[in-house]
Each structure stands twice: as structure tokens, then as C-alpha cells.
């Protein structure tokens, strides 16, 4: 029995790690969606976090905690710079700006020598342990639970529902949107740092547009009414392809099919919140 568990863990621990990292990314986009803003930059923020944390470890020999912190701070700072001008305006400006931004980041990674260019970074020491991931995920869940019924959470929901009405209630809509975006970038960056320290290897290709859409899909599939939705969505979409390996190249089609079914039959996602009397 123990032997079975051991071999099971040997086979699937990377998958489990990935589920947790993807869960963090799903939460990182959820917080912007919670105030009605679409960010397509979270894959790029993850990338910036991954490279920053890895370089802190490789070049500066920094302690792991510091590398992760740096991996969160730099994307958060970049998000602040992008967010302030674009989030003054309501509408799809953030989506457009972050779309372009993702492309810029990819090209920068490809061309800088410190990031290893198109080869990427090799030999990042494996520092991430299961408890690190569980701890970060635990902190995030705690954060989102507390946010839910606080004045801050309500302000975000009000902005999502109707930005004009929220402003007229005295809610500083721009600063809430910027904060949400910055916190999301921080989460994505830390997730990137954690990921970098168990995959050993970073390549600029991993953080492109495809992955930005994957992150969005996590949230949409699970539903954005509560933060549990994106967590469920990311878990399903990370595990499913593994379960369906026997389908060969059809499994990608099946992923798409499931998404279509959910959008058609459960337009609010798998986790739907209903208020009743």
C-alpha cells in the first residue's frame, strides 16, 4: 500500500505541483475579473516573476523567500505602470494593453542575454517543495475568503456590476481596479517563481498568448462568481489532459468540447452562486 502510494506520488507529484501553480494563476486573473476587467497579461507576469526569481537564485544566490518576493514585486510594479493610464478609462483598454504587453515581454525574453535568449534559462535549482505551494495557496484562499464579505470585496463587485453607479456611491473605481490588477500581477509572479524552481528550465515560449488564454479559460470554465470557480476550473483543465492521454491528439479537442458545453449549458461556469430568499 505504502509502496503504491509512493509510486503514485512519484508519477503524479509534478502534476499536483502544476495544479497548485495553475490554481494561483487562475486566482491572479480572477481578482481583475472580479472588478470587471480583463487582463491578458497574467502569463507575461508569471514569466517576469519566473525569470526574476530564477535570476535572483542563480546570479545572486538569494534565499528562496527573497527570490519569490522579487518575483512578485517586479510584475506588480510593471502592472502599476500599465494599470494607471489604462484603468482610468473603462472598457476593454486593459485587455488591449495587456495583449500587446504580453508580446513585448516575450520578445524581450527572447533577446536579452541575461534571460538566456531563445534558449532560456537552464539549471534553476529545485527549491520548491510541496509545503511552499500549499502555504502560498493557503494564504491566497485566506485572503480571498476575507475579501469576500469586506468593504473592499463589495467595492470590487459594485465596480464589476456598474462602474458609473459605483463611482457615484463614492467608490474610487480607478484605484480599486489598479490595486486588483497589481495584486493579480503579484500573485502571477510568485506562481511563476515557484514554478521556475521545480521545472529547472525556463523558456520564453511558455509565457505567450496561448498560456494567457489558458489562464482565462481556467476562470471562465470554473465561473467567476466566486474565487472557488477559477480554482475548480484550473484543477479540471490541468488534470483532464493527463487523464485523457490515451486519446492522443484528440484530447485537446475534448478540452475544447468541454469548454463549449460548459459555456452553453452553464454560462456562469461550473461553480454558480445563487442568491435566494
Amino acid at each position: 500500500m505504502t509502496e503504491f502510494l509512493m509510486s503514485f506520488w512519484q508519477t503524479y507529484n509534478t502534476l499536483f505541483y502544476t495544479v497548485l501553480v495553475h490554481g494561483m494563476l487562475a486566482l491572479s486573473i480572477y481578482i481583475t475579473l472580479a472588478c470587471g476587467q480583463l487582463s491578458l497579461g497574467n502569463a507575461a507576469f508569471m514569466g517576469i516573476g519566473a525569470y526574476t526569481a530564477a535570476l535572483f537564485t542563480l546570479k545572486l544566490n538569494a534565499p528562496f523567500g527573497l527570490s519569490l518576493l522579487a518575483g512578485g514585486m517586479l510584475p506588480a510594479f510593471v502592472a502599476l505602470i500599465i494599470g494607471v493610464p489604462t484603468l482610468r478609462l473603462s472598457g476593454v483598454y486593459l485587455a488591449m494593453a495587456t495583449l500587446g504587453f504580453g508580446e513585448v515581454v516575450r520578445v524581450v525574453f527572447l533577446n536579452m542575454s541575461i534571460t538566456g535568449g531563445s534558449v532560456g534559462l537552464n539549471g534553476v535549482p529545485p527549491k520548491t517543495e510541496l509545503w511552499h505551494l500549499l502555504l502560498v495557496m493557503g494564504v491566497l484562499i485566506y485572503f480571498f475568503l476575507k475579501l469576500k464579505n469586506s468593504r473592499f470585496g463589495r467595492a470590487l463587485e459594485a465596480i464589476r456590476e456598474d462602474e458609473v453607479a459605483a463611482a457615484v456611491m463614492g467608490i474610487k473605481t480607478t484605484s480599486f481596479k489598479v490595486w486588483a490588477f497589481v495584486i493579480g500581477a503579484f500573485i502571477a509572479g510568485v506562481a511563476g517563481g515557484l514554478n521556475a524552481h521545480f521545472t529547472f528550465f525556463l523558456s520564453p515560449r511558455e509565457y505567450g498568448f496561448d498560456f494567457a488564454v489558458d489562464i482565462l479559460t481556467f476562470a471562465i470554465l470554473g465561473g467567476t462568481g466566486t474565487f472557488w470557480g477559477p480554482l475548480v476550473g484550473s484543477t479540471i483543465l490541468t488534470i483532464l489532459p493527463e487523464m485523457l492521454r490515451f486519446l492522443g491528439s484528440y484530447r485537446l479537442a475534448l478540452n475544447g468540447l468541454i469548454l463549449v458545453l460548459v459555456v452553453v449549458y452553464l454560462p456562469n461556469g461550473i461553480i454558480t452562486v445563487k442568491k435566494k430568499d
Partner: protein
Amino acid sequence: MLRLENIIKDFGGLRVLDSLSLQVGEGLIFGLIGPNGAGKTTLFNIISGLSRPTAGRVIFNGTDITHLPPSSIAACGMGRTFQNIRIFKELSLLENVLAGMHRLFTYSPVAMLLNLPVQKREEKALREKALEILELFHLAGKAKRQAESLSYGEQRKLELARALATSPKLLLVDEPAAGMNPAETEELMGEIVQINNRGYTICLIEHDMKFVMGVCRQVAVLNFGELIALGSPQEVKCNPLVIEAYLGKEECK
């Protein structure tokens, strides 16, 4: 309390408000009437900061608020409702009112994360106050319901409750009785008077003349962006300009 000085608003080549000056005194229920397209809603948008005047100033309790953003104007004590209802549909009634109370909450993000007593105290006290406000509009029984599930008339009342929750010094109400049945309208008149008795100054736009004549102490009449009459309901409805532009003869009896 509110002073408008020579407000001009152009949309493209169209002059929607033409050098409008007006004062709303403290404690009043002030009516703003006039035909559709006269510029009433545009004026509310300018006062609440959603739209900027082409020229002119808005002075609120001595402060020039002409160029402040809507959230800062709200913080000065300006509340409003919308002609096309803008409640938070997917939130509960209670959450709608609590969102309206946003600026009354003071606790910090740290207090939120650590569940400090200040948070518990504020949440509890303001929840009770929110229920009281809902009760004022006979909606407390439905506090946990989703706002979308309300009837049209109830949604208008919820929006009024949410605006009242911001503790405004001046409450701008845009066509509160539109789409209400006579019984609901009657009830609303009572509620408006009751709010006013609690010390809130109200400025309302309304087409239902029974409503306007019944509750307003002072009425301004707008036509094509110009102020054509100002006075008590009685004076205004027998003003020849108003009869010609808007009301017709029957109202003046």
C-alpha cells in the same frame, strides 16, 4: 447649498444647456421639470461629475466641484439615482445598500485580513443601518434576495435606498416614479417626504405632475436648456410660458 453658475453644455454643435443659473436651498424638496430632451438629466450628470460642462461652475456647500471626479463629489455628500435604473443586479438588496455605504466604512485592509474588532463593529453597525434604510422602503423582508428579482417599481426604490445609504447632503432623484403603478407612486411620495423630514435635501426630476405638485416646495422649469420659470408649484403651473411649453392649461386650476 447647491449653486449653478451659468452652466453651458454643448454636445457637438447642439447646445443642450444654455447659461443656466440656479440655486437649491437646504432642506427643500426641489422639483426640476420640463419636456423630454430639455436637458434635465444632462444637468444631473454635470452636478454629479459624470459629464463636464462646456462652461460654468457648480458650487456645492461653498466648494467648487465642477472639475472633481464623481467619487469625490459623492464624498462631498452628493447622492443620486438614474433615470434608467442602475442597481447592482447580481448583488443582494443588502449588498446593494452596503455598497452605497462604502464611504462610511473606515477599516483598513489589515483590519480586514486580521478580522480586527473595528471591522466587526463597523460591519455589524452598518448592516443594521442598511436594514433600517431598506425598511424605510418596505424592502427589508427581501434583503437577501438578488436585486434583479425585484419588480420594476421595487428596483427604483432599491436604487433610492442605495443612494440614501451614502448619507448624502443632497439627493438627486431622476424620474423616481417612472414605470410605477399609481399605488406605488402614492407610496413613493410618502417615502420621499419621509426622507426629507429626516433632514435630507432632495432635488427631483419627475413628469408626474401630481407627484411634483404634491411634494415639491419649489419647482424649476427647463425648456430647451433654458430656465423658463422658477417658483412654488402653484406659481409655476400657471405661468404662461410653462403652460405653452410643457403643461397645458388643465394643470392651472
